[in-house]
């Protein structure tokens, strides 16, 4: 055992140098000694969300930066198109859980480490699970999942007499890539800008107006969208919803798109483009993932050991033209939906005209909320009343008629609270209605 320990010490000689020696640029609170290495090796559990391009890199990077207690969570399985960058996977692994294969690979390759996989959605885990970690690192391509975990970490914060307890903060390090561009950020929930504070950094997805698709197509994308959103539901060729991973489905869309393109003389419909449009494919290479994951892992190391001041707080990377990095401090939004603790109010100019569906449209379309399919409930005379909910079919049918009713018709009074639940957050948001024409006669 002693011999093994000594050999292990030798293995980590590189880390020991930067952890056991003082340095002129170190964090003022850096305490250089051998306990630090022991701490990250044994008592600093990290959760990695996503076992894809970034996740595989993060796992390798963190393990070799001394973090031996890592959990990794991902609901996806391995696909052939992952193999150009997700380097822990082989051809024989196609169809298996990403988290499980990645964890098994690392446990085998790197002596003494304990990677625990979770083959499930992040929403399947509750507070008690997330509370166990010193830090959470995200390598996701989904904004919804990012917002969800952000909301979860904010909900774990504890306040004492209105003062944030620093022990309740679980730092979130988040990376993202697209082609040769990427970003990395450090979030200290409750203290620095959170995902929701900077929601406008995520560009809205490109959409094409329905009338262009239906009547005046000009681009190959218009032809593909036509086949996808108009022809598929109408002709329902395989009696199932469109699945971008099914080559038969993609083939059908390709053929119909090509027919449409021929009719209008539109050049440029290719099979690759069709796949890209149907699945909303984001180009990806090994190198950018390596860069962004490396930057994130370095920040995790800084935060865990206090060796240097961590990134404040957003880094942009681009190597399309030369190599470019830029860091800046994204600002906390004073009235952030998630981390500000300021109650949200919704100002309604005229509740006799404003319909429920317009409020829902506001939640889904405005850059401030960007919700997916919010469910709305309220309390009327001490009883809970569902205003609208699309997630459950029977409730949707029952509440659909409310959409066209005005707020007054729904008995919603000035100052009443609406509870909004959405996939983008683990928590329910409370919105208080504020009527500008306050003395509206209620029916």
């Amino acid at each position, binding site marked *: 055992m002693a011999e093994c320990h000594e050999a292990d010490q*030798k293995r980590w000689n590189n880390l020991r140098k930067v952890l056991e020696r003082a*340095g002129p640029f170190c964090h003022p609170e850096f305490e250089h000694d051998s306990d630090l290495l022991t701490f990250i090796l044994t008592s600093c559990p990290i959760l990695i969300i996503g076992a894809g391009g970034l996740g595989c890199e993060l796992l390798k990077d963190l393990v070799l930066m001394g973090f031996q207690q890592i959990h990794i969570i991902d609901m996806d399985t391995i696909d052939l198109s992952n193999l150009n960058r997700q380097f822990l996977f082989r051809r024989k692994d196609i169809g298996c859980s990403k988290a499980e294969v990645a964890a098994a690979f690392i446990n085998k390759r790197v002596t003494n480490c304990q990677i625990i996989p979770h083959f499930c959605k992040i929403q399947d885990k509750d507070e008690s699970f997330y509370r166990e970690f010193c830090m959470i690192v995200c390598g996701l391509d989904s904004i919804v999942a990012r917002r969800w975990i952000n909301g979860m970490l904010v909900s774990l914060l504890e306040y004492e007499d209105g003062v944030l307890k620093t022990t309740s903060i679980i730092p979130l390090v988040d990376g993202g890539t697209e082609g040769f561009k990427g970003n990395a950020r450090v979030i200290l929930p409750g203290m620095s800008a959170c995902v929701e504070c900077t929601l406008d950094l995520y560009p809205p997805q490109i959409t094409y107006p329905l009338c262009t698709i239906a009547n005046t197509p000009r681009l190959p994308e218009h032809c593909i969208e036509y086949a996808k959103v108009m022809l598929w539901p109408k002709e329902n060729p395989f009696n199932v919803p469109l699945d971008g991973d099914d080559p038969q489905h993609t083939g059908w869309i390709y053929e119909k798109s090509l027919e449409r393109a021929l009719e209008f003389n539109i050049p440029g419909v290719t099979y690759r483009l069709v796949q890209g449009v149907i699945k909303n494919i984001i180009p990806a290479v090994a190198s950018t993932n390596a860069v962004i994951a490396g930057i994130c892992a370095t920040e995790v190391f800084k935060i865990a050991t206090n060796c240097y001041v961590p990134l404040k707080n957003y880094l942009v990377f681009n190597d399309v033209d030369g190599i470019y990095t830029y860091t800046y401090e994204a600002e906390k939004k004073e009235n952030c939906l998630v981390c500000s603790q300021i109650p949200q109010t919704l100002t309604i100019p005229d509740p006799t005209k404003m319909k429920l569906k317009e409020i829902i449209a506001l939640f889904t379309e405005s850059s401030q909320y960007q919700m997916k399919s919010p469910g709305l409930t309220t309390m009327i005379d001490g009883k809970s009343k569902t205003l609208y909910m699309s997630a459950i079919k029977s409730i949707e049918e029952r509440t659909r008629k409310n959409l066209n009713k005005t707020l007054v018709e729904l008995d919603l009074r000035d100052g009443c609270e609406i509870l909004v639940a959405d996939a983008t957050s683990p928590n329910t948001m409370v919105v208080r209605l504020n009527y500008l024409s306050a003395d509206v006669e209620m029916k």
Partner: protein
Amino acid sequence: MASPPPKSPEQTEKSKKYDRQLRLWGDHGQVLLENAKVCLINATTLGAEILKSLILPGIGAFTIVDGETVTEEDTGSNFFLDYDSVGMPRARVATQSLLELNADVHGDYIDETPEHILSHTQNFFNKFNIVIGTSLPEKVLIPLSKHLWEANVPLIVCRSIGFLGYIRLQVKEHTVIEAHPDNENPDLRLINPWPELKVHLEKTDISKLDNKERSHVPALTILYYFIKKFQEHNNGALPRSRSDKDEIRKMIQESAVCDENGVQILEDNFQEAIHLVNIGINPQIIPTQLKKILEDDCCTHLTQDSSPFWIMCAGLRELVQAEESLPVRGTLPDMASDSGSYIALQQIYQKKALSQSEFVYRRVCQIVTDLGIQQDIISEQEVKLFCKHCSELYVMRGSCIADEYEKNSPDLSVYLEDPDSLMFSYVVLRGLERFLGEYNVYPGHLDDQVEPDVLKLKIITGKLLSEWRCTQILRDERVHEVCRYGGAELHSVSAVLGGIAAHEAIKLLTHQYKPLNNTFIYDAITSSSATYTL
């Protein structure tokens, strides 16, 4: 239509596996990558990370040159060397585990030091498309740099130490056709349209259209109409100044008609025309950078050894001389309009682009015949791509690293004016190289040698700066910091540098995207970086 319905093409395994990257550099970029032979000198953590990001996207083959054996420290930072391999040749172990990443890639290794190879098999490195070296001592770097400069083989030199990193590119000449610029203005030619375009655009009189017709006209046609109107009001003068442009915007704005309710609204396509004013009215000029390329000696004095790039440049030059403008790109941005009007316009642009690239291709064929070289060296498809991207053409001429070390002192004074400049890190790294050459060990390698090594390294960097005639002083902290690292290589820092260096190699191999010119410094302490041309 009687033609049979289209059938979807059969996708190959490869195109499925590489799908996400083919969207970035295309099948033609992938072919270049798959034909590439890469040499890595020293399978350090950084070296292995670079190769990883080249093997995954599928280079043809790699060779690792490394005379070291695996140490315990290696297994703590290099993912491709596991604990059981301590004591074995590093070249062999790294090659074996890297090969697992991609069955399409070939790999071998030479278990010898680079010094040994340089002194025994001079031309060994010539057969590679690129050589990458990590942790090279000066005594290897200088002869290697000279040799590869002469052999015209690109060299990438990298180092990762503690929280500091360095990447340097040495390439004699590198040419890029597809630079993939982030923002590119559309190529419209509304000032000085060619005859077919002019005839087409003049067919539409905006003032005579009813409301329905108005809403279907492409913005391009609208803008052209108002440029003409402007000229009528201004004795035929072309709009040039900002106020001219404002006047055109105003004219478009005021052309708004009333809808059925009597409300004046400006349709989407008219709004688009207003947005197009800025770029649509600028006369098409030949970018200075491109003019330089077309006047370059390599373009005007072709030889049998000229590369396809320069032969195509010579062909393009003839077109530019004949037409006094660049070939039309042939693509249009999307514009609100009915399908027919848009497609008709698009076809006019495409047809022009095609006829111009045919002209260039004929000239290229003639040049190739005159030079007496193989006819099929350049395909019509290549010329088409070349013409389409002619405004992005890029030529980079680098410098020889050995020259900088031996002959020309770099002029760093300008950079060193700023006390926070990352150029100071370059000075420290050069000092570190010299320290390694003199003492054969990293400064601060042993715990009790940190302080004495700080003094030694300070003397070395002080000498370097005075050799370069720099009056600035390197702060002691910077020297101390690098001695604190004691030669430690940290995995996450090497992972960042590995990804970046691999992508620079991919740029050089595919001739797409503009590479680093020529020195990159990464400071992981502050998460910042800088590039310098040395």
